[in-house]
C-alpha cells in the first residue's frame, strides 16, 4: 500500500432506518437521514474544504470553511453542522462561496508561519491543502499585524511536540481528548484572539498534565501544531502497512507508516473494528524497543549458565540445541521435555511451538503464559457456557446500560477499550466497580461509578454470591430466560444455595468488608438497569478461586438474562495481545487447538494423521508443575518462546530453582531477559513489526500481523521454531504463516473458515468461523449455548490459605500501569519510562503513618516467600490494610514476594493476595543486590567467537 492518509468524511457515520435523497452540485445523493451535508458530499465524491471537521469527532462548525448554499435557506450554512433533508438542493461551489472561503483562509494565513517547505507537516497538512483548494494567492492583511508567532514549542512529551504558533485553534485536539479518549486533559485557555490550546493548568506542560499520551490529539491535528517527533526527525512516510498491535488484548490495528525500512510512526487505523481509530501510549508510540541496543540478533549458546555467552551461527546454535534435546530424550524420555508458548507471538508461532512439543519432543508438556493470567477464564466459561471465550465484541459496550467492572482496571491495562466504555458512560450508562482499589473509572471527568464495592482482596466469590442472593431473593432473576436457555434444575439448586441467609450481603459483610446496602443497590442495578454487561480482568482470575469467580460471574449473567445480544455478556479483558489466540491454539497441556481434550481419541487421531506421528494421550505438565518436576529431576529441558517466567511467575526463588535444575533451557526472545540468566541457548526473536501472522484479541477477533521490515536477526519467530524442528528431523516446510493458518483451520472446527486470503479481504474475523457461523460471531449464544443448556455451577466461597497475621498484617495486590506493559521488556526500553521509571508501593496514609513512611521513602516489602524493597506512594486509593504495586521492573521483582498459592482448578497463581509486612528500608534489599550481580555475570557475552 502506498502512503496516503485515510479518507476523512468530515463527520461521523450516521445509522438510520430512513434514507434521504438530495442533490449536491447537480448529482443525486442518497444517505441515511441525519447525515451531514458535508459527509453526503464527501461520500459521493465531492469533498468540501474544511479544517475543524474530522469524522472521528462530532461536528463543531468553527472553521467556517465548509460553507455551502442551500436552496430555500438563508445565508451560507456550514455543511458539517447542517443535516441533509429530502429533496434539498445544495451547491458547494459558487462565486460567493469561493470568496467567503478565500476570505476565511486569508485570515488564517495572516497568523501562520510561512515556511511550509521546512515544516514537518509539509505536504501532509490540511491547512496547506485547503489553502491550495481555495486558491489563496494574496494575504492582503500583510504580516505586520497581531499574531501568535514566535512562541516556544512544548517539547515535554517524549513522543510529540506542541508548537502553539502553528495552531489554528480548531479544537480538534481538545475534542479528541474529550470525545475519543475521554481524559479531558486539554482545553482552550483564554478567549477570542488569545484562545490557546492548554494542557491542564496554566503552569502545566503536556507531560505534567493529565494527558495520557494516547496520541488522539496528534492524529486529529490538521497542521503540525501537534506532531510526532519521529516525523520531524525522519520526514513524511512513503508507505503504510496495516498491522495489529502487540501490546494488550484489545488488539488495535495500526497503519505502520514507513520510509524504507524506517518506521516513521504508528497511526491507529480508522477501519480497525477493535479500536475504531483510537490508540494508547503503548501501541501508538512505544515501539522504539524494536531498535533498542539491548536487542540480541545473533544466536548464543553456553555449556553451563556460569559461563559467558558465545555468539554462534544459527546452524551451530540449532545443532547444539537439537543435540541436547535428543540426548535428554534418550536418557530421560519425552516427558522430560517441554515448552512454553507466548501470548505475545502470533497464532501461527504459538501453534508451531505446541506442535514442536507434542509432535517433536513427544510430550504434552506445553503451557502458555495464560496459565498465570486467564486460564480460569478458559475453565470457567467452558464449564458454564461451553466456550472458553468472552461473549461479546467491543462495540457491544455501546449498547450497555449497566456496566459492571470487576477486578479490572481498563484505563490502565486496556486503555483503548476503556475510552469506548467511558464514551458510553458519558452517554448515561451506569457503572458498578468491584475492586479493592479506587481505580480511575470510579471517578474521573464526566464518569462516576454508581457503586464502588471496595472488597477485601480474595473475597470475589463471596461478593458475587451475595449479589446473586439479592437478585434471587428479591425476585429480580429473569426466570423466563433461565427456563428457556439454561438447565432449570441446576438453576434451582444454585438459587437455593445463594438464597441461604449465610450468603446475604449483611452476613458476608464481615468477610467482604463491603457495606451490605451498597452491595444490594449494586445487585439491583445490575439486574434491573437494562442491558447489563460484565467486564473482568486478572483481579478475578489470579486468585485461589479464580475459576469459581469466573463461574460466579457467568451464573449472574445467566440468572439475569444478560447473555446473547449486544450490550450484555461476560467479557474477559485479556492481558496480552494474543492470550485468546495462544489458548485457542492448543497451548495448554491437556488440550489441542479449539479446546479439545488430548484424551479425546477422534481429535487426537485427526492430528496424528495430519502430523504423521503418534501423540501422548495423557495431559502434560503445567508451568508450576514443570518447575516442581525439574526440582525433582524428572523434567530436564524447556523451550520458552517470548516469555520471561522468572520475572512474571510467582515465587521467583522457586522459578529460579526449577530453571537452575534443568539441563537445557532455550530462551527465544528479543532480549536477554531474566529467565535467560538460567538459559543455555538464546535464540534471537523478531518483533511484531518483523513478521507475518495473526493475533486474536479479547473479542475473539483474528487480525493479521504484517511484516513491515525485515527481521533484525534474519528470521521470523515461526521460522526459528521450524528450524529447530528440522534440526530435530521433523522436516517441516512452511514458507508462509498462511500455510500454518491453513493447517490450524483444517484441524480446528471453530477456525474452519479462517484463511490468510480471507483476512486480507475482510481485515478481521471473529471465531467461530465455520459452516454454522460463516461470517463469524460478534456476539455469542444468540440462539443458545454451545453446550446446549447454560450450566449453573454452585460456587462456594473458600477463603484463601494466604492469611494475614501479626507478622504479615497487610494484603498486597498487584497490577499494571498505563505506560508500562507486563514485565516491561518492551516498554522499559522506550521513552515510556518518563511516566513510570520504577515500581512503587501504594499504601494508605494510616498504614504509612503507623510505619513512619512518607511519600517517596524506601520500604521493605516482605512476605512468607521473600522480600524486596521499593519506594512508597501514600494514597487513599487503596483501603487501609491493602497495599498495591506493579511488576514491570526486574529491579523490584515484585514476584519475589508472591506465593505458590494458585487457583484450585487451573493453578493460575494467586498474585492478587499476598500477606505482607511493610517496614522502612534504606534502599534495595540484599537479594536485589545479589540478583543484580547474578544478572551482570549471566549476561556476559564472550568478546570473540571461541572458534
Amino acid at each position: 500500500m502506498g502512503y496516503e492518509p485515510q479518507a476523512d468524511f468530515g463527520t461521523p457515520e450516521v445509522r438510520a432506518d430512513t434514507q434521504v435523497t438530495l442533490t449536491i452540485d447537480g448529482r443525486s445523493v442518497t444517505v441515511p437521514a441525519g447525515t451531514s451535508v458535508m459527509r453526503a458530499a464527501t461520500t459521493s465524491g465531492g469533498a468540501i474544504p474544511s479544517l475543524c471537521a474530522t469524522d472521528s469527532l462530532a461536528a463543531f462548525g468553527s472553521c467556517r470553511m465548509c460553507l455551502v448554499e442551500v436552496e430555500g435557506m438563508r445565508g451560507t450554512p456550514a455543511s458539517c453542522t447542517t443535516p441533509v433533508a429530502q429533496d434539498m438542493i445544495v451547491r458547494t461551489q459558487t462565486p460567493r462561496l469561493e470568496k467567503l472561503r478565500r476570505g476565511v483562509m486569508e485570515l488564517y494565513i495572516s497568523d501562520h508561519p510561512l515556511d511550509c517547505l521546512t515544516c514537518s507537516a509539509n505536504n501532509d497538512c490540511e491547512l496547506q491543502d485547503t489553502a491550495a483548494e481555495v486558491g489563496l494567492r494574496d494575504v492582503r492583511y500583510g504580516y505586520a499585524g497581531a499574531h501568535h508567532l514566535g512562541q516556544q514549542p512544548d517539547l515535554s512529551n517524549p513522543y510529540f511536540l506542541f508548537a502553539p504558533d502553528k495552531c489554528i485553534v480548531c479544537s480538534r485536539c481538545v475534542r479528541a481528548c474529550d470525545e475519543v479518549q475521554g481524559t479531558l486533559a486539554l482545553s482552550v485557555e483564554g478567549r477570542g484572539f488569545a484562545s490557546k490550546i492548554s494542557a491542564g493548568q496554566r503552569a502545566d506542560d503536556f507531560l505534567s498534565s493529565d494527558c495520557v499520551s494516547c496520541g488522539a490529539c496528534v492524529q486529529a491535528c490538521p497542521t503540525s501544531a501537534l506532531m510526532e517527533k519521529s516525523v520531524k526527525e525522519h520526514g513524511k512516510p512513503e508507505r503504510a502497512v496495516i498491522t495489529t498491535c502487540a501490546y494488550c488484548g484489545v488488539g488495535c490495528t495500526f497503519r505502520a507508516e514507513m520510509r524504507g525500512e524506517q518506521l516513521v510512526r504508528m497511526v491507529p487505523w480508522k477501519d480497525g473494528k477493535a479500536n475504531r481509530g483510537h490508540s494508547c501510549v503503548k501501541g501508538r508510540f512505544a515501539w522504539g524497543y524494536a531498535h533498542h541496543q539491548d536487542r540480541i540478533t545473533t544466536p548464543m549458546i553456553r555449556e553451563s549458565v556460569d559461563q559467558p555467552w558465545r555468539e554462534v551461527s544459527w546452524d551451530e546454535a540449532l545443532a547444539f540445541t537439537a543435540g541436547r534435546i535428543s540426548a535428554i530424550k534418550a536418557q530421560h524420555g519425552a516427558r522430560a521435555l517441554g515448552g512454553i508458548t507466548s501470548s505475545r507471538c502470533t497464532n501461527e508461532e504459538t501453534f508451531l511451538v505446541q506442535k514442536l512439543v507434542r509432535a517433536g519432543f513427544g510430550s504434552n508438556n506445553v503451557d502458555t503464559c495464560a496459565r498465570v493470567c486467564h486460564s480460569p477464564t478458559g475453565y470457567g466459561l467452558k464449564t458454564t457456557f461451553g466456550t472458553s471465550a468472552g461473549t461479546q465484541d467491543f462495540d457491544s459496550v455501546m449498547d450497555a446500560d449497566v456496566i459492571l467492572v470487576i477486578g479490572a482496571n481498563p484505563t490502565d491495562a486496556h486503555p483503548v477499550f476503556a475510552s469506548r466504555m467511558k464514551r458510553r458512560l458519558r452517554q448515561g450508562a451506569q457503572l458498578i466497580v468491584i475492586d479493592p482499589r479506587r481505580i480511575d473509572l470510579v471517578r474521573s471527568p464526566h464518569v462516576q461509578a454508581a457503586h464502588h464495592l471496595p472488597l477485601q482482596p480474595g473475597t470475589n466469590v463471596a461478593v458475587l454470591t451475595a449479589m446473586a442472593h439479592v437478585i434471587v431473593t428479591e425476585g429480580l432473576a429473569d426466570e423466563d430466560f433461565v427456563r428457556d436457555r439454561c438447565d432449570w434444575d441446576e438453576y434451582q439448586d444454585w438459587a437455593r444455595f445463594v438464597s441461604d441467609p449465610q450468603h446475604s450481603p449483611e452476613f458476608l459483610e464481615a468477610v467482604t468488608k463491603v457495606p451490605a446496602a451498597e452491595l444490594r443497590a449494586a445487585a439491583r442495578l445490575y439486574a434491573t438497569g437494562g442491558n447489563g454487561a460484565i467486564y473482568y480482568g486478572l483481579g478475578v482470575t489470579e486468585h485461589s478461586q479464580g475459576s469459581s469467580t469466573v463461574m460466579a460471574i457467568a451464573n449472574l449473567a445467566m440468572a439475569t438474562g444478560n447473555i446473547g445480544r449486544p450490550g450484555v455478556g461476560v467479557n474477559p479483558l485479556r492481558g496480552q495481545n494474543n492470550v485468546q489466540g495462544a489458548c485457542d491454539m492448543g497451548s495448554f497441556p491437556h488440550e489441542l487447538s479449539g479446546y479439545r481434550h488430548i484424551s479425546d481419541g477422534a481429535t487426537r487421531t485427526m492430528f496424528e494423521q495430519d502430523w504423521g506421528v503418534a501423540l501422548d494421550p495423557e495431559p502434560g505438565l503445567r508451568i508450576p508443575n514443570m518447575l516442581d518436576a525439574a526440582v525433582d529431576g524428572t523434567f530436564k529441558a524447556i523451550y520458552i518462546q517470548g516469555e520471561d517466567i522468572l520475572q512474571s511467575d510467582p515465587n521467583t526463588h522457586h522459578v529460579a530453582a526449577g530453571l537452575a535444575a534443568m539441563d537445557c533451557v532455550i530462551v527465544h526472545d528479543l532480549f536477554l531477559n531474566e529467565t535467560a540468566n538460567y538459559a543455555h541457548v538464546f535464540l534471537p526473536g523478531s518483533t511484531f513489526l518483523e513478521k507475518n501472522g495473526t493475533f486474536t484479541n479479547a473479542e475473539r477477533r483474528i487480525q493479521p500481523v504484517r511484516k513491515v521490515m525485515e527481521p533484525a536477526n534474519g528470521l521470523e519467530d515461526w521460522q526459528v521454531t521450524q528450524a529447530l524442528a528440522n534440526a530435530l528431523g521433523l522436516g517441516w516446510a512452511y514458507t508462509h504463516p498462511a500455510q500454518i493458518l491453513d493447517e490450524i483451520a483444517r484441524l480446528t472446527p471453530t477456525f474452519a473458515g479462517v484463511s490468510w486470503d480471507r483476512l486480507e479481504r475482510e481485515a478481521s474475523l471473529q471465531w467461530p468461523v465455520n459452516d454454522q457461523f460463516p461470517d463469524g460471531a460478534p456476539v455469542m449464544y444468540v440462539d443458545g449455548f454451545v453446550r446446549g443448556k447454560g450450566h449453573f455451577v454452585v460456587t462456594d466461597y473458600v477463603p484463601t490459605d494466604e492469611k494475614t497475621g501479626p507478622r504479615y498484617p497487610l494484603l498486597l495486590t498487584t497490577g499494571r500501569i498505563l505506560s508500562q506493559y507486563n514485565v516491561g521488556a518492551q516498554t522499559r526500553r522506550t521513552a515510556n519510562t518518563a511516566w513510570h521509571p520504577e515500581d512503587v508501593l501504594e499504601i494508605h496514609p494510616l498504614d504509612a503513618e503507623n510505619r513512619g513512611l512518607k511519600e517517596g521513602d524506601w520500604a521493605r516489602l516482605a512476605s512468607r516467600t521473600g522480600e524486596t524493597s521499593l519506594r512508597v506512594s501514600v494514597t487513599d486509593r487503596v483501603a487501609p490494610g491493602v497495599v498495591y504495586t506493579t511488576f514491570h521492573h526486574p529491579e523490584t521483582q515484585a514476584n519475589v514476594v508472591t506465593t505458590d498459592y494458585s487457583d484450585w482448578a487451573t493453578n493460575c497463581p494467586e498474585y492478587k493476595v499476598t500477606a505482607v509486612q511493610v517496614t522502612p528500608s534504606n534502599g534495595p534489599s540484599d537479594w536485589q543486590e545479589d540478583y543484580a550481580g547474578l544478572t551482570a555475570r549471566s549476561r556476559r557475552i564472550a568478546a570473540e567467537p571461541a572458534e
Partner: protein
Amino acid sequence: MSGTQDRLVYMANQIARNFAVQGEAVAIAATARHILDFWDPRMREAILAGDRAGLSDIAAGAIARLQASP
C-alpha cells in the same frame, strides 16, 4: 509448601474443597475427574504412591477411585 508430594496433596485437597459444596459423592467423582483431566501422569502416580495422610476425605476418596480405575 515444601516438596512436590506436599504440593500435590495440597492441590488435591484444594480441588476437593471447591467441589465439596456439591455433596460428598459428587465431589469425589468430580475431584477424580479433574485430576484425570488436568494432571500429568507422573503427578497422578506420585500421589497414588505417596503418603495420603494429609488428604481430606473427599480427596482421599477421589484418589482411591483413581487407584481403582486409573
